């Protein structure tokens, strides 16, 4: 057992060596350093390389077509795979590759093959569907495990529906998602950033209307 001052000295020495080691580790990652909880710029690879640029930017699908509960619930909602299937039951690959196959088939005088993009195949696999879009017998369906990009700490209660119905544009917090191939976190989503916006809209209003954006702690923390 360690006793008295000598013991403490030994222990401190060990711990300080540890501290130096940690500092060395930290130095290699300084470029990526940010304050705890701030994940600005976070852009994880998703299980399916879904492109917001294509769907929201080019095809102009409304955000709330997929994130359907943004105006009714706390959560905007990650769409169920069944929402994808509304279109992708029929659209199985990009227009370009389908046309190319069509032309090639015409040249070769055969029926065009069914084209399936490798990313969409993952969707069909989740439903355990075969080539003819019929469920494969005996195969387990499994939901798609998306990686959360915008993740607030557990002690913050952010409510999408209030902000959406008050007229805050999605891009205000999420950035120009319709231009992103892979979604990344644009804003730092810190408390100061939230509060600044609340102060601003209380002063200048939102969309020409005056709003009452609370600055109470308990508006978000409870």
């Amino acid at each position, binding site marked *: 057992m360690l006793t008295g001052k000598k013991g403490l000295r030994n222990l*401190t020495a060990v711990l300080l060596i540890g501290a130096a080691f940690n500092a060395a580790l930290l130095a290699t990652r300084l470029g990526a350093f*940010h304050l705890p909880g701030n994940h600005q710029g976070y852009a994880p690879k998703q299980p399916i390389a879904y492109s917001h640029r294509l769907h929201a930017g080019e095809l102009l699908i409304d955000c709330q077509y997929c994130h359907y509960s943004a105006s009714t619930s706390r959560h905007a909602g990650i769409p*169920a795979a069944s929402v994808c299937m509304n279109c992708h039951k029929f659209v199985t690959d990009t227009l370009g590759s389908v046309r190319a196959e069509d032309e090639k088939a015409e040249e070769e005088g055969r029926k065009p093959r069914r084209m399936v993009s490798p990313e969409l195949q993952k969707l069909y696999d989740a439903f355990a569907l075969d080539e003819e879009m019929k469920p494969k017998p005996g195969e387990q369906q499994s939901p798609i*495990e998306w990686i959360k990009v915008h993740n607030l700490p557990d002690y913050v209660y952010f409510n999408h529906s209030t902000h959406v119905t*008050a007229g805050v544009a999605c891009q205000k917090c999420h950035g120009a998602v319709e231009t992103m191939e892979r979604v990344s976190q644009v804003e730092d989503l810190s408390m100061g950033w939230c509060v600044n916006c609340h102060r601003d809209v209380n002063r200048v209003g939102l969309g020409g209307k005056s709003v009452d954006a609370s600055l109470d*702690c308990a508006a978000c923390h409870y």
Partner: protein
Amino acid sequence: MVQKKPKDYWKSLQQRDDGTIALPVAGDEFVEVPQDERRGVSRRDFLAAAGFTFGSMALTGCTRAPVEKAIPYLVQPEAIIPGRATYYASTCGACSAGCGILAKNRDGRTIKLEGNPDHPISRGGLCAIGQASVLGLYDSNRLRNSLHKNAPSTWAESDSQIAARLDVIRSNKGAVRVLTGPITSPTARRAVDSFVKTFPDAQHITYDVLSSAAIVQAHERTHERRVLPRYRFDKAEVIVSFDADFLGTWISPVAFAMDWSAGRRADAAPDQFSYHAQFEGRVSVTGAKADRRVRVAPGEAGVVMSHLASRLAQRAGEALDTTGLAPCPIDSHVLDDVANRLWHARGKSLVVCGSQSADEQVLCNFLNHLLGNYGQSLDLEDSADRICHDDEAVQSLIQELASGSVAALFVHGVNPVYDLPNGAAVENAISKAHMFVSLADRVDETSKLATFVCPDHHFLEAWGDHDVGDGSISFFQPTMRPLHDTRSMLESLSIWSGKLRLAQDLVRETTQGRVLWDEAIHNGFAKATSVAVATASFRSGSVKAVLGIEQVPADKLTLVLYPKVSMLDGRGASNPWLQEMPDPISKVVWDNYASLSEATAARLNVGAGDVVRIGLSEADGAANALELPVLIQPGQHDQVVAIALGYGKEESARFAKLGPQWIERKELLGENGLVGTSAAGLLSYRDGTLRLSGASVTVSATRRKHQLACTQDYHNIEVPESLTVLGMDRRRPMVQETTLAGYKRDGKLPQHGHGTHHPDLGELWADDHKYEGHHWGMAVDLTACTGCSACVVACQIENNVPVVGRDEVQRKRIMHWLRIDRYYCDNDGDVDVLHQPMMCQHCDHAPCETVCPVLATVHGEEGLNQQAYNRCVGTRYCANNCPYKVRRFNWFEYARDDTLANQALNPDVTVRSRGVMEKCSFCVQRIEAARLESKQQGRSIADGDIQPACQQSCPARAIVFGDMNDPESAVSKLMARGRHYRLLEETNVRPSVGYLGLVRNRDENKDQSHHG
């Protein structure tokens, strides 16, 4: 003029006698554990040295975000919106009262029960046991599949074996016995009946330890109808109760509390305030609220009733043979007064009796008959033949079982080995059944003997119905998908009867053509039949006075076994919320005890915490004796020893590992390895019925001690000794009361303004807090509050308040945000009991806010005292500075390793971690939800839109929350009343919670002469 001495309120005997609660229990708010000097490196030194290392490790860890997954449904179910709760109307199955509930389902999990405000029985209230029953869903002791000889089995396997054996029994004419608890479901009764009919020799037997069978038997004698009357406490101007704890545990306490408080409105015309007299031996919740409480031992109650009956019979001109009647054991002036009041309120009075003796119940019926109360304050319009318990049949069943002549025994909803006296003999008898099928949802004292255990659903997962009695049916519907591979008892019985019928179809069939199904399921209840008004007439010949007092030998005491508000017959024993709910009167948690009066304890030379041995006089065998610690209960009859039922269940052994696991931890369970001790061995059969009270017992000291965990002295509000002036009373006027007559005359409380003789106390934050929008406040009516603690449990569930265990409670670390302080007050040689719910008072000049060094607790725009957990560093300055002692510190990361139980957590409230302070938030999550809802609908928040969990649950409607800036809100109107006061007004903290003083319907002169 005589100077009126203020009434003396005290929380414990020590405080009464010494004027204070001694250190270290109450003086130090936080009892610190002394640091052990012998350990080499002190905690402080180690932390100083380790700071560098762990700090730098934390920084290196900050460069990467933890990966969180978002996993949506594969196919989106209709009507489920993530993050939005769905409410299903159903019925509470926690006891046989059948209150209406709205079960809150969030993302597929049922997480909270609210009272259904439209329901004919409960009208929005829900008791503590009902509130806590949601945790039963996620009880890890529940069976996850069926069992065969205590090994897991499949339903197909169990069913085929049971069916095969039943076929043999049918052809051999073997005896089949079905033993159940009280069945209030018409469908279940039909299912059991049709199951029983498939056998040549089968019988259905029911029993209930908390039986109302005597009332039914008495009505059979007096009215020739086997019914349980419907009591209407709201229609009674004079209520006389003989040991019926109708506000706590008797028959349907939520409905009765609702009616009782509706009949006691001090601010309306005087005739809307009932007079309530309670005759009882122990101190019940109901007795605590009575205007006159008379101590009567169980053996004397019959004679007191006979005396009352003879007085009233004389006036009514009816005959009652009282030859040989023993002299009245209580002051006859008291009885004269009660008789007078009853007589003047003929047709508007009500006499109830909680006894299990049919003779006493007949007298009770006679009293109601003499007063013309039938058809007024109680009626026999009961459509439900609900109570058919037959204790004699249970006894003969056990004999039959012991003889080995029962071929198959089916048990549902009861635990006879635990419930009945002489459990060993019952166990032995049951094990002689050739086949024993239990439908219990867990392995308990009885079902561990079973050949097959076929677990039933939890009531929140099942279809069912409940006969309300007035022609309405209350429905159960599944509020979530069954968690485990369990099966409805209705379906099990139908399979064993020959053909599977789905429970939903069976329930629907029962009321086919009488109710609109969709509407009934939406509302949770429906009117099924209209009940004809009973024309039963009273048979006077059936009445016999109870003549003699049962004499108790001088060295013995009379036993009173009682169901406790949180435990009833033990159905709450596996629920940690109920185990940690302080008893409304004794404030003890996690134990049962032998209550003795002060004089009796002195006579037996035992003190609080001394273990005594209690034995039945007749048997006196070691088997029936039990050992319990003593609790000294002011106000109890000297001849009575009172013991709560429902403790010492085998499954309470699971709590051995509850609470923080740390080095100074002490054993949580008793010497028997269980929570408390079972008192079932002291139940006795008399005149063929199972009696809770009346037996003579010996009580002897054992010279051992068992420290009870009792919260009554905690969070005490006294003037510190260093600040007292000589002769100053260190207690503060927390509870205030008056008499009805005094209140009518003065329109205010007698002590109103007490302690407020001071210069004008100025505004502290006039410029900072203007309260221009809402200003939230709460009013608590002490006249209505019964102390039943439904609010305490509702708050615990809503706000994810942890359970800490017996050891931590003894260290004053109970975490309840809402506590109920209980005060005693001497009254003419007796004691009054007063209850005061105490939660964060959300002071406008909050002392906690000014001392927080990190601004973790700050004032909101709407008057809320906010606590930001993630900012709190745990200095505890705020708790130290809180005059009301309502702040709670998380000393530990309270055990959350029961992942199944964690599913009951409310996702709208942060689960606090170690080292932060917490307290009542006025259910700010509900305020925010109402605000967002109203904003989206483009309107302002209406009065009543926000109900904190405590208010929602309150069966007496004692708590009202609302906007104090709105003069039309209910809370503003209450605060304008003359009996409204705020606590510690002299400190100028300006609480947002106000109290309405307790009003008792008492003779003012008598009160003055006593206290003058």
